[in-house]
């Protein structure tokens, strides 16, 4: 399959880069082609992708990469840095009014999650000891007012509504009431609308003029595709947008829309929605999002995890063994067992930089935990001698090992083949990485 796993695909590319001393322009192009595909697959708008890749390329072709010791790592770093830069570099806060109430309008397409977001934001403010007033200005969608009322009741917060009247008048009246009742925030839930609906877009413009809100937040569904740019651009052109709320991030989308929207509006993403409940709401962390879109977050997590789990001394020994090619099946077993302590094997192997590529070649071992159990059983059925010197394992020994481990001779053959292949790859790696092996020797398969 072409794009079964973005993360491993990318890592495969980076591994290729890592293997070489110096980067040629062709190398960079190859890598960035993969980055481009990954971003497109993550729903980042194609135009944004183009510009992004161009920027990264400019930086990559600079001397810092070409002369750096680990070019692959440098590319990862640059891609990640540029992505984070584009996402906004720090957490963006709401801007309060000089004199309360602070007025916040929530706008966006139908079904993007505005009403739920109003409730979540209200809950968020309430917890910070504010007293928000919720305003039901979606007079079009059936039962939208009722929905906000129910949510307000759940949160024990007041909801202002005037039925199906003019939304601008509703909002104006709401602000008056907030002043009277000393609500320091006014959150206006507006009806979902298409960015091409002139009449309804005009309505928002009028509302902005009437309320002079401190914040106009565009609510965007994280699953949005290529059209996110058109939508965001249209809203931005008509209204003084101050920020973005990204909803439904509890789904499994990569969320490339975040990048697209950010790029066209220049507005910070201020909050994310992570579920249907009113407390599933968080400030937006740009670096996390960058990793999510790119599929590199796992790598960072892995590095932390691996460092915590792997025994330093053993790692050093292993490093030496690998370099001198005395890595035995015994060591292999031990490594697999250490890996197992770190969590689900499949996930882990995918997270390992470079495993994207090796994983394919070591297919049998990458499949699943069951496969891992099998490998473990096979090695455990070998004599010490066999583990240290697999070349003595002839066909009668293979039959014995298979019988002892409850597997088929075929399985034993596969394992030995894969082990040989791995050793060969290590030899190659060692050659390529001469002198630079330190520090990464911790990962047995790199």
């Amino acid at each position, binding site marked *: 399959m072409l794009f079964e796993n973005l993360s491993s695909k990318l890592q495969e590319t980076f591994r290729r880069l890592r293997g070489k001393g110096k980067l040629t322009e062709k190398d960079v192009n190859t890598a960035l082609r993969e980055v481009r595909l990954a971003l*497109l697959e993550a729903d980042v708008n194609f135009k944004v992708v183009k510009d992004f890749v161009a920027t990264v390329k400019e930086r990559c072709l600079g001397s810092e990469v070409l002369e750096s010791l680990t070019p692959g790592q440098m590319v990862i770093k640059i891609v990640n840095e540029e992505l984070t830069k584009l996402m906004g570099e720090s957490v963006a806060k709401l801007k309060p009014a000089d004199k309360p109430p602070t007025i916040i309008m929530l706008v966006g397409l139908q079904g993007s999650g505005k009403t739920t977001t109003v409730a979540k934001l209200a809950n968020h403010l309430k917890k910070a000891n504010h007293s928000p007033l919720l305003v039901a200005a979606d007079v079009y969608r059936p039962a*939208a007012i009722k929905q906000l009322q129910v949510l307000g009741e759940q949160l024990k917060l007041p909801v202002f509504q005037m039925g199906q009247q003019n939304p601008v008048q509703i909002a104006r009246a709401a602000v008056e009431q907030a002043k009277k009742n000393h609500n320091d925030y006014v959150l206006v839930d507006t009806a979902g609308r298409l960015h091409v609906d002139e009449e309804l877009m005009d309505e928002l413009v009028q509302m902005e003029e009437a309320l002079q809100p401190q914040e106009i937040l565009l609510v965007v569904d994280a699953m949005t*595709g290529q059209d996110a740019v*058109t939508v965001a651009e249209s809203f931005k052109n008509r209204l003084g947008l101050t920020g973005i709320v990204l909803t439904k991030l509890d789904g499994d989308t990569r969320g490339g829309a975040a990048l697209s929207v950010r790029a066209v509006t220049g507005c910070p993403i201020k909050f994310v929605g992570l579920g249907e409940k009113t407390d599933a709401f968080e400030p937006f962390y740009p670096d996390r999002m960058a990793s999510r879109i790119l599929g590199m977050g796992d790598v960072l997590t892995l590095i932390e995890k691996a460092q915590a789990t792997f025994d330093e001394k053993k790692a050093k020994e292993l490093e030496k063994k690998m370099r001198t090619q005395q890595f035995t099946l015994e060591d292999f077993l031990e490594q697999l067992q250490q890996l197992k302590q770190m969590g689900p094997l499949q996930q882990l192997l995918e997270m390992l930089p470079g495993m994207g590529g090796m994983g394919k070649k070591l297919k049998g071992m990458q499949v699943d935990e069951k496969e891992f159990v099998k490998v473990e059983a096979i090695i455990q059925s070998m004599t010490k001698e066999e583990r240290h010197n697999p070349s003595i394992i002839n066909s009668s020994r293979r039959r014995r090992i298979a019988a002892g481990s409850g597997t088929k001779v075929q399985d034993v053959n596969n394992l030995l083949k894969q082990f040989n292949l791995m050793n060969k790859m290590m030899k190659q790696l060692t050659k390529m990485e001469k002198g630079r092996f330190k520090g990464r020797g911790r990962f047995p398969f790199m």
Partner: protein
Amino acid sequence: MSLFGRIKEGLKKTRNIIMNRMEELFTRQNFDEDFFAELEEILIAADVGIETTLELVEKLRDKIREEKLKAPEQVLAALKSLILDILGRDPVPLQLEHKPTVILVLGVNGVGKTTTIGKLAARFTAEGKKVLLAAGDTFRAAAIEQLEIWAQRSHSDIIKHQQGADPSAVIFDGVAAAAARGADVLLCDTAGRLHNKANLMAELKKVYRVVDKALPGAPHEVLLVLDATTGQNSLAQAKVFNEAAPLTGVVLTKLDGTAKGGIVIAVARQLKIPVKFVGVGEGIDDLQPFDPVAYVESIFTTKEQ
């Protein structure tokens, strides 16, 4: 220029570029790498997705070679035809011969399930059918009230329980009532759910089982609602929902915007699930049977803003 500036500048022109590009693209005489690269971009911009796009363009290259296509119109026609090979050329109607016909409507949050039910109900009652709605979204605030309003608008009846009730129980009652009252069609609303929530998908499986138990052979239609604005995630949605409750069709909503919803091509290609209806607005009449030929046409034309 800063990256921001560059992107903003570029996007201003994107819309026009796409339109001009289509014209320009198909008036040129030689089909070089740029030609194919730009073609790829048009498909990707329509959310067709990389995998499907690359496959389509690859096939198009073969076709150009094999059939020695020279004229730009021929090439465009060939590409459209390749897409229609995937989507099918004829509209696929709903199966309505059972009495009552039970239709289950599924999808992630906010895609337009309830609205689609309202529109479908109105269609059926206009044909003189007796229609019943089951308020299976017992989770979202005011979801039942929303469906009630659509029941009034479409002149259909509604079966409902309290908010928080077991959706299977509501839908079971719906099936029983539909049979008892001699209804022609039962439309079951369900709560929006993200497909990666195992517990909610399990709930859906239960609904499916319960319907089958209440009326063997039902549900007769299981429609997945996909939002045209959604990108590649729609494919994941279709896969997982299809596993929980075998889908018989897709309804593609919000085509009245500027998004094309091209991911339905990938859905048809991988899962062989036909698109049956499209939503083109919030009004009760804004639902049309899916016409593959017209749809493919729309991918290659840009709507004026």
